[in-house]
């Protein structure tokens, strides 16, 4: 082989090595993965969503930085409550809850000084009876407000409409 050819074989080798031979992820694949993942919450930053749904770190690091409670003692009169506003015992959060036929709309707002403290934080709302299997995630915006729509079922009704439930609001 001539030196010239040898040089050219090496050039070709470098070209082949520099080509990206792997096919990109297709749009259909991205759609399928997206559909398999929990939804991005309203006001949730893309970083928080990625950490929450694509890594195990979020769950393992999710020790709340603060916890508030809503303790209700009023007895039920048996009527179906459709709309209720609750304030946490420490006056840091207000929950406005409205039930339609199939969904419950939950709006969370931080109050007073908590607004600045909790803007852009992530809330998990649950109660002791449900903690292991059911919680509602809400991402707070720059005004420390956020909302979620959840399906009406036994768990969500117990959490938001049972007067005996002590609601736990974890700030992550």
């Amino acid at each position: 082989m001539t030196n010239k050819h040898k040089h050219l074989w090496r050039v070709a080798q470098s070209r082949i090595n520099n080509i990206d031979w792997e096919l990109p992820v297709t749009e259909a694949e991205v759609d399928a993965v997206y559909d398999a993942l929990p939804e991005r919450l309203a006001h949730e930053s893309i970083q928080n969503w990625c950490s929450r749904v694509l890594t195990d770190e979020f769950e393992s690091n999710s020790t709340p930085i603060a916890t508030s409670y809503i303790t209700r003692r009023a007895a039920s009169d048996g009527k179906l409550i459709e709309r209720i506003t609750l304030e946490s015992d420490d006056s840091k959060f207000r929950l406005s809850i409205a039930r339609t036929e199939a969904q419950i709309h939950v709006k969370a707002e931080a109050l007073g000084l908590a607004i600045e403290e909790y803007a852009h934080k992530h809330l998990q709302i649950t109660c002791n009876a449900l903690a292991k299997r059911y919680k509602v995630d809400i991402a707070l915006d720059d005004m420390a407000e956020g909302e979620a729509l959840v399906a009406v079922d036994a768990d969500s009704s117990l959490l938001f409409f049972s007067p005996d439930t002590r609601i736990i609001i974890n700030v992550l």
Partner: protein
Amino acid sequence: MDKNPSTRSYNLKTSTALCNLSDDITEIINTHFAQPASNVQSFSGNSNVNRRQVVETKIWLAIILTLSKKKTYQDNLLYNNWRHDAEENDKTITAGGQTFKVNPEAVFYVNEVLIKRPQLINRLGRMPTAIHQLLECYLKQSWNVAWLQSVIERFFNRAEHTVDMFFKPVADSLSGQRKKLGDNYSKVSASRLAEFGPYCLTVNDNLLYVPEELTLADVFTAIPAPIKPQDFLRRSKITGEPNSAERLKGVIDALNARYGLLVSCGLDPKKWLHQYDDEEKAVLKFADQELRQLAKLIKNVKTVERSAFKTLAAWDEATCFKTTFNELKAMPKIGAKKPSKTYAGFETAEQCYQFYTVFVKAAVVFNDDENIAESDNKLISIINMSCKKTEDIYNAINLGESAQASFASEPALDQDDAETLLNLPDVYPGLFNPVTEYTWKFINDDIENAGLHGKQALYLLKNSDLKQVIKAHPQLGYAALSDQQLLIRLRDELVAIITKQLAGDQDDQ
């Protein structure tokens, strides 16, 4: 030549990976925001805020899946902690009957590098930043021709006004980002703002204040979809206005700078990415300049080590490390009369070597559940440079030598050589079959325009007659392969042909 001090340290592999990433992201942007002229009317990307959020979420998801899937990113871009089997750390997602891997480092890279808010540096004066220029570039790519007049410049005493409907969605998006940013921008931005006024996006009679600092996510949110399909990086010398992929590459270079330096030093970006902060002097952190010095030190030590290994000369790492440290520290910086008191953030060679053994080598070598003998063996193998990945890390920096141009990677061939290269299959007909010959010619033909060099092999499938050639020769068995299997087989066959030729040549000698 790449004059950007933050990028010139990368070697070719890193630069190629960043080029690939720019092309991959451009392809993802095309998938979600671009439409061919024939289909513009049917696209309603901007009409629904929720749909827009879904699209943007999918864009970042696609970037993470791409970084997790392609080996080039695992090998040449992302920090690879080989103490643990990387596969074990991957999160798997089953969807549509397939299993997808999500590499936690890819998520970290997107969250902490690609979506990081780059801050203005001094030398820009009143010029828009690279990321503002990228935004302007995307705006001009809209199918709505009015956006062609987009200009982002700093102006004093101009009032915001939205006259045209087409301007409103982008104005709303950028205003929201500006409100969110508030005054949380760097001191340099604040002084430029005071000196030259805010960045103003002007499109005909419309004017809007643009946030002082933008993230890539902010830019994607403001893209006025549908845009025209975006071209990819040109591998030849760029003339005229850079296209969006080239602008994007510049932004990615800047965003990647500190991460790349840490990887080059063998330091885990998760622990060391955050910038040196005056208020945290008690905590050991590095400024970028110190990282460059540390990388140069490690590279120099490894060069001496390699040469000692080749010549079987006596070698003592601690002595070599400390001597090299003292030599580099004694050199005054350019423009300074005296050498500085520290090098790479350390006053003495002993302190620096101690750091190196604990945080660089120990992090590379020791596994929690390994006994000392096993660890020692690993350490020896690394010192002997039989550990390829370690070699790659130390080679991943090219400080002190001439800067690498971002795109060039080989000496230019003259016309004759280019033609001879193209026609090598005719000179060695027994080596090639019709399919490998066709692929060879596609790769090496007209390198500045249509060639595959440095690009994605996807174009071979999309833009060539390869499938027809395969169909014409069913006996070769290519037709039954999936696209990915086909590409890998073609690559392996071409590599085998070349390796055989070069090995045969050595045998002859």
